[in-house]
């Protein structure tokens, strides 16, 4: 619906219709109340217009029931809108487990994208149709915001943290990617494209691109190039903790606190190692701030995610994504 209208955005993600439905409801609500107020004002202003400069209207009784009604009715309406919109928000903020991971770094004034399989893009993002895509967003400098109107999604890329967004494209095509958070001189040129491709085409694109090493493999290389491995050894003898099987697990800190070793914890431990010290270790690690790029940090995190616990199998080879449900084929709107 409205796909050809110059006054309405395309609907190209699984959320688009739901968001638009709430939008239309609110447009109708706004029109109703605006016309109600404008109509009442017009009727009263004409009916009770001043007929003589000496008009002195009488006191009008103010029924309490009326006051209660125009408190209760708006309250009931906003409660409904709250739950409706909250339901949408929770869905938009909860990526499915089988989503395809994509890492995005905002930088003045471009979007840098890394796929798990190693493809890197600038101001372009190729994604398969009908597959949920999870974006981990960060920034190298100031705050940016990843905005795809056709998908109805937007999420800030904040330096120093990883924000997550996700979408599932439902219509092949090229869609605008905007930076929506003002980021300086050339903010309005920080525009890219999302290319939604049929899954088969997407596989061909993955195969045809100049894929280097996978993200995790690049991280592994960085891990040895930066000599992380000299301290973070695969046994318990290193000066730093063994990282095998750490990702996603609770870590005991000096002082008794516990944190979950997620992306932000790993990032912080590389950039500001002294912020949180693992119990039983000395604060001897130097900072790697400025030595590793944001993309490099993402590669290291991807590598650490693949490290299994002691005695576990080797990191699994990274392959291209599979469509979520091959039997049904890509989902159509």
């Amino acid at each position, binding site marked *: 619906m409205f796909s050809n209208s110059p006054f*309405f*955005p395309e609907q190209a993600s699984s959320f688009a219709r739901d*968001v638009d439905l709430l939008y239309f409801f609110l447009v109708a609500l706004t029109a109703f109340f605006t016309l109600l107020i404008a109509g009442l004002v017009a009727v009263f202003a004409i009916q*009770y217009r001043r007929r003589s400069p000496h008009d002195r209207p009488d*006191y009008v009784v*103010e029924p309490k029931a*009326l006051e209660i009604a125009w408190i209760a009715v708006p309250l009931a309406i906003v409660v409904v809108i709250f739950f409706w*919109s909250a339901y949408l928000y929770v869905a938009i903020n909860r990526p499915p487990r089988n989503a395809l991971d994509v890492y995005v770094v905002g930088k003045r004034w471009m979007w840098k994208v890394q796929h798990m399989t190693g493809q890197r893009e600038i101001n372009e993002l190729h994604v398969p149709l009908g597959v949920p895509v999870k974006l981990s967003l960060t920034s190298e400098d100031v705050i940016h915001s990843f905005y795809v109107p056709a998908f109805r999604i937007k*999420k800030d890329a904040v330096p120093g943290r990883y924000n997550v967004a996700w979408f599932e494209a439902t219509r092949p095509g090229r869609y605008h990617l905007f930076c929506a958070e003002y980021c300086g001189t050339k903010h309005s*040129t920080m525009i890219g494209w999302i290319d939604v491709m049929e899954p088969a085409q997407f596989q061909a694109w993955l195969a045809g691109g100049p894929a280097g090493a996978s993200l995790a493999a690049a991280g592994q290389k960085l891990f040895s190039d930066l000599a992380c491995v000299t301290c973070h050894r695969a046994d318990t003898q290193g000066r730093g903790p063994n990282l095998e099987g750490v990702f996603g697990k609770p870590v005991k800190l000096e002082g008794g606190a516990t944190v979950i070793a997620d992306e932000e914890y790993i990032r912080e431990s590389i950039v500001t190692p002294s912020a949180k010290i693992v119990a039983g270790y000395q604060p001897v690690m130097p900072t790697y701030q400025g030595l590793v790029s944001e993309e490099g940090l993402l590669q290291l995190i991807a590598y650490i995610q693949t490290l299994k616990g002691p005695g576990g199998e080797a990191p699994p080879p990274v392959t291209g994504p599979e469509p979520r449900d091959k039997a049904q084929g890509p989902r159509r709107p």
Partner: protein
Amino acid sequence: MTTLEPQPHQPPPREHYLNVSYGWKSWLFTTDHKRIAILYLASVSVMFLLGGIFAALIRMELLTPPGDLFQAETYNKLFTMHGVIMVFFFMIPAIPAVLGNFLIPIMLGAKDLAFPRINLLSWYLYMTGAGFTLYSLFYGGIDTGWTFYTPYSTVYSNTHVVSAALGIFISGFSSILTGLNFIVTIHKMRAPGLTWFRMPLFVWAHYATSLIQILGTPVIAATILLVALERVFHFGFFDPARGGDPVLFQHLFWFYSHPAVYIMILPAMGVISELVAGFSRKRIFGYHFVAMSSLAIAALSFLVWGHHMFISGQSAYAGLVFSALSFLVAIPSAIKVFNWTATLYKGSVSYDAPMLYVFAFLGLFTIGGLTGLFLASLGLDIHVTDTYFVVAHFHYVMVGGTTMAYLGGLHFWWPKITGKLYPEGWARLAALIVFIGFNLTFLPQFVLGYLGMPRRYHAYPEEFQVLHVLSSAGATILGVGYLLPMVYMVWSMRYGRHASANPWGAKGLEWETSSPPPTENFERQPIVNQEAYGYAPIPAEAHV
């Protein structure tokens, strides 16, 4: 103009606050709240003109998709200065410092505010703040947006952030002192018989506003200080490279700047209450509900700041709480709109220029308020935040609401302030032009925003052009509508007919003294023995 007086050419009173003394010293060292109001009127008018010129330049650039009129850097400075000047130096002081300053002591039957010299200090602080901000403007400008988001403002921007921030910091104290002055005056200086629930709703609205000013403004002052410290001395408050948190800035900034929105709209609501009563010659329907809704808005205003950050990565639970609380603001706002509308029922409604602004306000504020529901809606805000939808929404509230009320109020009290009548025909024409121009400027921006046009874009993809052209066309009409009153009001100060004490036949203490009032406001101490808006006797059983 509907006047009750058969002889409009009666001579003015022999001595009043305007002719009691002459010379620049008698103005710059005055402690008379009425003269200080005039000083503010001149200052905010200059700022409004300046902010308006920036808006016109912005709209000119946006006529065409490529950034062809200005450099990107210049454009970014234009929208920053438009925002900084309009928010901090026009919207926030306009109604309280001009109309509030002039009217609150008179409406209370007092000779002046509680602290007349602090009142003058407020104006000097405002001027000093404006001076610093204008300094950054003329010596290269500032390009951070009026929101000063970190780490852009503290690390990356190469413009005059510190001096502009210092200007806002200083003018913040002007706002705090004005709020303090109003609160003390309202508590301590009401005329005999003027109980709390006999006060005009204009005073109630300013009381609520003042609470926000003294509780919220110190937070923005502290926040701006942190920005300056990080920028100059490289402290790590907000810069992640120094261990800071950029989102912390947003929490602090919006903790003030969302309540600041109510600093702008609450006094406007107070003006509308006076105008609706005056031009329908009726007591405001549901007086107590309207008075209390101002306090409810002031209280809720401090609990909703997180709705500016639904996509910043703040926790989803925080998002849910902030969304729910934001929806609640709709209730007191709805109470007001319904009660104003009901006041017209069985009234004696006239169509003088101030009332035309009221009609415009009721329609535009309703749209502005209801589009706020779109933005409080979590799942929908994700799509529309940081787009022209937000720009349209807050212009409907700030320009369609506050500026309409300010202009309406200025026309309503103009005879009292200057002792002269403005030309009614021109004024009605201007009100009509403003209404048409405003809608043509900002309605297309709602459509643009939903279409996905991000705000603060110097250049934009071609598919957005039609709507931008409509918006720019509307802005030229709006500009004419704003220039007209500036011309005919200045004209009326010299050539306007003399106003009587009560040209509108309105109720309220300000209409019981002469126009313009004497320096001490009243010849004799007024004594209040009836409810506000006593157009008709209230039956005993109706008393609450």
